[in-house]
Structures are given as C-alpha cells and as structure tokens.
C-alpha cells in the first residue's frame, strides 16, 4: 500500500529511514562510532593519560600476593585509569585502547580485503558461469570444509619467524573469509543475471566489464554492505581468539586477546580478576556494537541472504 509512495525514494534512502527507527541499530551505530573514535585516537588518548603500554611499574605490585597490583580494582588510580597489569605493572588503559586499535584495524582491513575479493569473484562467477563458476563453487566448498582455526594455528609452524605476524593474521583471516561473502554474492548475482535488464545490456553488445560494473555491482552494493558489516564482529572475535591462543600479534604490541589469555592465571587464583574485566569488556562491547549495527543494516536493507543456490 505504501509502495506507491516509497517507489519515489531510492532504496538507500528507504534503508536509512528504516534504520533511524530501529532502536538497537541506533545503539549499535553509537557504539561503533565511539569504538572507532577511541581506536583512531588511541595514541592521543594514551599520551593524554600520561602513560605508555611498555613501561614496567614494579612498585605498584604487591609481592605478597604474587605481584598482583596493589589497591582496589586492579590498581585503578588517577595515573592508571584501568589499573595496571599484574606481574609487570604496565598501564592497562594504554594496553586496552591500543589493543582495541589493533583489533579493529585488523578486522576492518580483513573486511575490506574480503569484500573486494569476494565481490569480484562472486559476481564474475555468476556472470561468466560455466567451468569458472563450477571451480569457484568447489573452492568455496573446500574452504568451508576446512578446519580453519586448526589450520590458522598450524600455519604458525611453517611461516618464518621474520614474517610480520599482523600481516599473517590479515592474510590468514582473508584467505578463509572471502569465500562466504563470495558465495552469497554469487547467489544474489545469479538471480540478477537472469533478469531482463542484464539480458538487455548484453544484447546491445555491452562488454562483460561494463555489465559487471554498471549493471550488477550497483544492484549488489546493498547485500555487500550488509554481509561485510555482519562479518566485522566475526573478524574481531577471530583476531582475539588467535591472539588468545598465542598465534596473534606478538608482544609487546598490545592485544585484547593476549591480555585476556594472560589473565587466566589471575582469574583461576582470584588474585586479580580486574585484569580480565577491562580487556574483556572492551572486546565484548566491540563485538556487540558491530553485531547490532550489522543486524540493523541487514534489516534496513531487507536483504534475505539465501544460502541455497
């Protein structure tokens, strides 16, 4: 009934209008903006706090309690806003905000890489079809059937020590990440290829490149945006998990996952649960914010992501 009115408005405008009404999407957007601001301004914030993530403050530790921080809340003070790390006394605020920066940077770079690669391969597979499509589909199946986490950990054994770990993380997450986006986009694109306007463009002699960039891509930007947004929290979690398992970014670069891993002993003994609290909350909020935003974007664009072909 409202279609006659809505027809005059572009899909993007409609989506924005729907998103503004969605309370949880708004919360997600606010969280994401805050997270990105904190991550972007992390070095500045650290400077503002007058600390850095590397300096040891052994004087703030209590040797009687196994070198847990002195004072309440894991040693929270006006100097150390989130307290200090047990055993080393490094400033936890610096570690958390810089760790968040690491997490988000890796997740966003991986999302960009997988979106571009996945979109190109997905659309081209749908457009060209034939053996190319068949091979692409087999590759998707192969990557889905792969024990990804196991393999990512196992890779640690064959990559030379000199190879930068952050780059390895991005590569590994991208290699296993692009296929799910490519498959979804391929299925969406396939239904488009069968439609008349693509047929029409082909029949007047448009080149494949023209059809893909001018006809298919604009119609698939919505789904790509949705899938990419929904994928970000997954990559944040994956980066944290790998760092947690000791195969992420190496110390002393701050990382939320590694801090959480380091906190295990302090949680088991109950000596310093705050060491888990601050990085844990940061990680949780990061994943939650992007999940809410992703759900909101999906609902707003009303994209149904069919898994079947």
């Amino acid at each position: 009934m409202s279609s006659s009115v809505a027809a005059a408005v572009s899909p993007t405008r409609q989506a924005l209008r729907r998103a503004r009404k969605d309370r949880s999407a708004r919360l997600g957007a606010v969280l994401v903006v805050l997270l990105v601001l904190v991550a972007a301004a992390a070095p500045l914030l650290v400077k503002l706090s007058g600390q850095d993530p590397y300096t040891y403050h052994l004087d703030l530790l209590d040797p009687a309690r196994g070198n847990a921080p002195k004072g309440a809340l894991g040693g929270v003070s006006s100097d150390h806003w989130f307290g200090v790390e047990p055993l080393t006394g490094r400033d936890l605020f610096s570690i958390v905000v810089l760790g968040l920066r690491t997490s988000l940077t890796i997740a966003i770079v991986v999302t960009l890489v997988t979106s571009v690669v996945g979109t190109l391969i997905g659309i081209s597979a749908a457009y060209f079809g034939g053996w190319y499509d068949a091979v692409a589909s087999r590759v998707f199946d192969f990557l889905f059937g792969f024990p990804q986490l196991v393999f990512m950990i196992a890779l640690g054994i064959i990559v030379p020590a000199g190879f930068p770990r952050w780059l390895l993380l991005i590569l590994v997450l991208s290699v296993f990440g692009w296929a799910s986006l490519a498959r979804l986009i391929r299925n969406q694109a396939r239904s488009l290829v069968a439609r008349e306007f693509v047929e029409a463009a082909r029949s007047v002699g448009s080149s494949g490149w023209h059809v893909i960039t001018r006809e298919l891509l604009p119609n698939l930007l919505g789904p790509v945006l949705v899938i990419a947004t929904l994928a970000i929290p997954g990559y944040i979690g994956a980066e944290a998990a790998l760092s947690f398992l000791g195969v992420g970014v190496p110390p002393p670069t701050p990382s939320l996952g590694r801090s959480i891993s380091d906190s295990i002993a302090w949680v088991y003994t109950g000596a310093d649960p705050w060491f888990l609290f601050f990085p844990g909350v940061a990680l949780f909020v990061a994943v939650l914010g992007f999940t809410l935003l992703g759900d909101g974007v999906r609902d707003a664009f009303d994209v149904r992501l069919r898994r079947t072909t």
Partner: protein
Amino acid sequence: MPDLLWFVIRRLFGAALVMLALSFAVYLVFYAIPADPAHLACGKPCTPDRLEQARHFMQLDQSAIQQYLSFLKGIFAGRTFGDGAAAVHCNAPCFGYSFPLARPVTTLILDRLPITASIAIGAAILWLLFGVSLGVVAALNRGRLLDRLSVGVALVGVSTPSFLLGLLAILVFGFWLNMVPVNGYVPLTESPVDWAWHLITPWLVLAVLQAAAYIRLTRAQMLEELNLDYITTARAKGAGETRVVVTHGLRGVLVPIITLFGLDLGFLLGGAILTEKVFSMQGLGDLLISAVAQLDVAVVVGVTLFSAFLIILANLVVDIVHGVLDPRVSHG
C-alpha cells in the same frame, strides 16, 4: 528407497575425493616448512652427518610426493621407520609418527579424542535443546516479552567470545561461589558423576554461546515458515496450533538447523581449542597447540587432517540427513 541409496553412494564417493585432495594439499603445505624437524631430533652436537642420518630415519630425505605416498600407504598398511633394533613401528592405520613424543599420531589423537568429544557432544545436546526451543518460543511470541528476552539473550551470546564467557564462569562459579571445579578432566569410565561435574561449566558456557546462533536461526526460519501457505492449509484442515507448529512448521525448519548443527559439531570435535585452553583440558586442541610450539609436524598434520576428516564426515552426514528429511533432494 533406491533413490536414497544412490544419493548416499554418490555423496560418499564425493566425500572420499575431497578428503584425498585435502590431505594432499595439507601434506604439501606442511612439508614445505622451512624449519627442519630433523634438527630437533639430531641431538647435540648436530653434525651434518647425524642430521643426514636423522633425516633418513624420519624419511624426510624423500621427495614430497614420495612422502605423501608413504603416508597414504601407512594408513592402510602401517609404516616402519629405520631398520634393525632401532626401528620404529607405526601400526595401521598410521597417520604419521611423532618423534618428539615417541608415539604414533593415531595413538595420540585417540588418547585425546575422548576429552574433546566429551566437551563437544555434551555441549551440542544442550545448545540444540536450548536454541531450538527458545527460537520456537520467540517466533510464536513475536514482538512480545518472551521474544525480546530470547533475542536479547541471543544477541549477548553471539557477541561474547567463548573464552571470555568461560573465564567469567570460572571466576563466578568456580572461584567466588566455589560451586564447580574450574579445570581438570575425569574419564567417564572412572566416575560418570565426576566426569559430568567437571564438564558442566564448559558445557554450559559453550551451550549458551552456541545456542544464540540457533535461537536466531530457528526464530527467523520459523517466522518465515509460519507464513507459508501449507501452514494455513494445516490450520484449514483443523489441526491444532501445537500440531501446526511442530508437525508442519518445525519440519521445514529442521533442515537448516541440522545443517548448522552438523557443521558446528564437526568443527568442535576437531578440537574445542578455545574451551580446552580456558578449562585446561588436554584434548585435541591442546595437542595441536603444543605440537605447533614443538615443531612436531607429524602431529600438526595428523590433527589438521583429522579435523578436516571430521568436518567432511559432518558434511556427509548432514547431506544424507537432508536427503532423508527433504524428499525433494533425494527423489529426483
């Protein structure tokens, strides 16, 4: 039924091919490793001579293809490294031999599997029950309090990394409330009660997190399903709401749920890596992580292939169940 039988045979054949391709790929990747495992075995001082000996003993002096073929042969016929008194036997099915641990990989995996399987299967049953029932309840009460509650629980669930919730559970239930053991594993055969008691926290943690995805999936599918014409047909026939939802609605939802369930369980059986680390349990994931640290290639390859095998197996089972559940798949 011959339709279904053919369908199963086709899928079995396909799965075997994928497994073969995968094992070859994994083997090539890991034997291209720059660090030489023979270095670790050659002892000190490591003269070029002794290194060569070690390499020969471990059969690393053969070409990658040759090594792969001996690996395949070992699965069916077993392998022997070296000869004479120093010879090491690895009985079929031999998936490699760990020289650092001086044990066949097959034995190592079988030793660790019960722990991982205990974690995975117990948790899987819980999350399937939680997830599907809450998802159905949410769909039937769309927009009302129960729905919002379920959706909220699901949202927190998908937003919490498992290791974070695991540590939180240990902190609260293990340390503060002192209710449950925080780590360790007791074999089922030793004491079923202690076994379950030690596993209850990892089970619940995994179940709560995984259930989230199942709540979301079940709810979305159920809402879609309940709008279909054949649901109206069932009502028009005079079926009661319970029958409409369970017999007619849930049946269609089952296929995507079982697909997800099979894959999740397959992944988890191949190593509940994060959970094992949080709860200090020596399962397959722990075996893998220590093998990586010790450059124990045979174990790394073995565990990788084993988890790949489980995933392929899970895919196969899912496909077959799909064929049984959905007549459109298996009948022409």
